[in-house]
């Protein structure tokens, strides 16, 4: 195995750097609210990785991914709301007893598991309908767009069950033996989960399964003629992506100690798209670095010029699309690729020269060349 | 029309009295060492050719040698990777098809590409629409001119293009090309999928058009008999290069056997 250090792609080094930065961040003496925000950003990294699997690797652009994220968040949110009987927003609506279908959520682990399985099941349901039909990719994007809009309206409308516009507050950081985890402890829990998800996705994307996903993105019709059923692969990828999105919601809500409809809307879904587009899609690193850059830019910019930051974000996105379509990390990977293959590309040019040179001289001798062959 | 002396039938901006004999042999179309690729495959590699005003040229060769690609590069649908194309002495290498059409090149593609949802009349008007500065009256005169060559079109003016037979679509496509009063007309395999009897009077009509409208004709065709009745000069392509050219009268049987037959 000549897996020398030089062979490791450059972006994996950047991943390690990013995770080291995340791990030492609380020790760098930043104010607590900065550390709290970084905790949310790390949860968002898991969310961005889940969408990169779907969009970056498999080419399925979802504009409603935040709905799956929200399913995770709301499950754990409801869990902590119903710990001691019907919460205020229910009693106000005249529901004094916790509805039966919410009862199982009272138990933290059950809520966590439901927060993972619900988005996965929903992804399989949606995937079954869309991927099995002969419909082009753009319809998937439109359906998920509609999904995000309707989910937001639905949750906002169910005042009695989801506390509507003001969302669910008081989400604790997974109390173990009675006491919720300290902020710093929870920070490292989220960081650990993020690293685990990252390692899992490295395995997934390097496996043949991941390569099939990439080939589906590159040329889905061709893949069928190699014996693969792309619909099955896409449903499984969408399910995994849904699972991880649910997980990121389950990590995010306690870090934020609340979850509102803003976090599951079209804006939230498209915001994570921008993070991946700026970072670069289809290599995981882009999702990590993109989320770190854009989330922090959003916070720092909106502190300085609250009204302008969205304008600046729009302009940045336009610049990236026109001048760096494959994103920051994509650009770096391309540079490494062209260095690495410079040698073998010379071989192509050489082989091309000798091909054309050969065909040059054989052009003069076209006659004898032709006959000598048919005789054989 | 006095034999040998053609007065432009309808006033193009400068009425020109031209007699066939002394038509200056200036080259209407010149291709200098053009290379045309389709994706990564090099279809036309280093082809040079020139077509004079009033020429009747047929481009021949087996399937897949690059005939259609060559025509498409002349009208501008396919960019030439290198080399240059001159039409009436101005460089059109980089100009889009719409400008070349305005310059006087008309194109009848393989398969005719009639717009199915448009009626016969609308298809014809489309041919002139981008060339009309004048009033409607001018369009009707042109349509009359086309009906004179293709009377069958007049009977089906309001039928949708999509429901016409192959032969009728062919006549509509040529009529549509004439609506822009071109000085050069490119036809890509006009006899493809047309019954033999229609092919015969297509040849006569094309000859009439050439004589009366003084249009230079460049035609891609594999039907030898049809080609001989239309063209005076020929060019044979193989693997994207010209392997033989000259007057159609000089086209010997073994050239046909070598480059055209199965």
């Amino acid at each position: 195995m000549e897996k020398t250090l030089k062979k490791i792609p450059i972006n994996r080094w950047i991943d390690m750097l990013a995770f080291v930065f995340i791990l030492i961040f609380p020790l760098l003496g930043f104010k607590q609210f900065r550390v709290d925000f970084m905790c949310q950003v790390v949860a968002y990294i898991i969310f961005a990785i889940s969408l990169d699997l779907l969009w970056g690797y498999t080419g399925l652009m979802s504009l409603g991914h935040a709905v799956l994220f929200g399913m995770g968040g709301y499950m754990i949110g409801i869990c902590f709301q119903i710990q001691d009987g019907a919460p205020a927003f229910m009693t106000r609506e005249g529901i004094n007893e916790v509805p039966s279908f919410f009862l199982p959520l009272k138990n933290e682990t059950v809520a966590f598991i439901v927060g993972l399985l619900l988005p996965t099941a929903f992804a399989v349901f949606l995937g079954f309908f869309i991927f099995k039909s002969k419909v082009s990719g753009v319809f998937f994007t439109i359906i998920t767009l509609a999904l995000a809009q309707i989910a937001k309206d639905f949750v906002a409308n169910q005042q009695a069950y989801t506390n509507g516009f003001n969302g669910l507050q008081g989400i604790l950081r997974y109390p173990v033996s009675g006491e919720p985890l300290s902020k710093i402890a929870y920070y490292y829990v989220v960081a650990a989960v993020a690293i685990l998800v990252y390692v899992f996705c490295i395995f997934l994307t390097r496996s043949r399964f991941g390569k099939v996903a990439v080939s589906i993105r590159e040329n889905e019709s061709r893949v069928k003629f190699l014996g693969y059923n792309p619909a099955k692969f896409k449903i499984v990828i969408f399910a995994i992506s849904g699972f991880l999105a649910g997980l990121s919601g389950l990590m995010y809500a306690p870090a934020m100690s609340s979850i509102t409809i803003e976090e599951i809307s079209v804006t939230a879904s498209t915001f994570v798209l921008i993070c991946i587009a700026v970072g670069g899609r289809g290599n995981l690193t882009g999702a990590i670095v993109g989320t770190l850059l854009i989330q922090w830019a959003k916070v720092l910019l909106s502190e300085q010029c609250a009204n302008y930051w969205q304008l600046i974000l729009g302009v940045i996105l336009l610049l990236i699309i026109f001048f760096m379509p494959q994103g920051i990390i994509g650009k770096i990977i391309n540079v490494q690729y062209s260095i690495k293959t410079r040698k073998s590309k010379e071989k192509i040019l050489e082989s091309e020269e000798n091909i054309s040179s050969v065909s040059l001289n054989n052009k003069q001798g076209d006659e004898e060349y032709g006959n000598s062959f048919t005789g054989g | 029309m006095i034999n040998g002396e053609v007065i432009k039938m309808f006033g193009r901006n400068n009425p020109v009295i031209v007699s066939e004999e002394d038509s200056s042999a200036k080259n209407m179309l010149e291709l200098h060492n053009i290379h045309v690729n389709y994706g990564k495959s090099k279809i036309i590699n280093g082809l040079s050719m020139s077509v004079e005003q009033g020429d009747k040229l047929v481009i021949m060769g087996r399937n897949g040698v690059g005939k259609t690609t060559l025509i498409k590069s002349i009208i501008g649908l396919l960019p030439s990777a290198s080399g240059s194309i001159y039409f009436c002495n101005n460089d059109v290498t980089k100009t889009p098809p719409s400008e070349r059409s305005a310059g006087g090149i008309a194109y009848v593609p393989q398969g005719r590409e009639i717009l199915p949802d448009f009626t016969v009349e609308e298809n014809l008007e489309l041919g002139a629409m981008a060339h009309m500065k004048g009033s409607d009256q001018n369009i009707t005169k042109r349509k009359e001119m086309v009906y004179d060559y293709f009377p069958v079109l007049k009977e089906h003016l309001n039928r949708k293009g999509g429901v016409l037979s192959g032969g009728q679509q062919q006549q509509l496509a040529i009529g549509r090309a004439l609506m822009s009063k071109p000085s050069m007309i490119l036809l890509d395999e006009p006899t493809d999928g047309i019954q033999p009897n229609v092919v015969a009077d297509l040849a006569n009509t094309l000859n009439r058009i050439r004589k009366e409208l003084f249009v230079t004709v460049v035609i891609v065709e594999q039907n030898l008999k049809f080609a001989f009745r239309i063209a005076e000069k020929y060019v044979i392509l193989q693997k994207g290069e010209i392997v033989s050219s000259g007057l159609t009268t000089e086209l010997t049987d073994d050239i046909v056997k070598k480059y055209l037959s199965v």
Partner: protein
Amino acid sequence: MATALLEVKNLSVEFSGFKAINNVNLKIEEGEVRVLIGPNGAGKSTIADLITGKTKPTAGSVFFKGVDITGKSPDEIAGKYKIGRKFQGPNVFDNMTVYRNIEIALSGYTTVWKSLFYRRTTEIKKKIKALLEQIRLYEIRDVMATELSHGQRQWLEIGMVIAQNPSLIILDEPTAGMTAEETFKTGEMIKELLGEHTVIVVEHDMDFVRQIAQTVTVLHQGRVLAEGTFEEIEKDPQVIQVYLKDD
């Protein structure tokens, strides 16, 4: 007489009124090299589409090793029945390296489950290396497919079809857009294939057909016009007439 490897029985397909394939019968024996020729629009590629399941026929049926595979999905025909297809314009995975294009085409790991637990064993590596050498792309195996020359992309796709180790290979105009030299090399490559696989080649280039053909089937307007050795076809008046179109 053993059942033919592939048998097409009165196959037809109609696209909104136009009969692209009109009652075609074909019989291909194991190990044979059959070349389909015919002028443009004769239906050569449509036949390939019908066999590989890309298009569904309106009448007739396709039998492979005696089993009726008419109308089955492309991935089942390719995966279960092992029919490999090379498309006209090279149809490869652009932003994947040459090595990965071949590896993804390897047969036997096409279900989700198997693809998760596939290991690139040394035995597989040897197989891929041999294949890459056969298609003369071993030195540039880590270059992206987009950067290859046209001829090399055609060879890459031929390599991908071989990697599927199919029992029947369908090559759709493998020499389209190639220089004379590349065409000759492709002919050599395909002749190397002939031993282990049955090959159907859809082709225009007559020199190339002469180079590889055993039996030739001539199609014209969706019908089989003639069938026989290349010499017979060359002299057949009907074929010459169709090709010179002086009907």
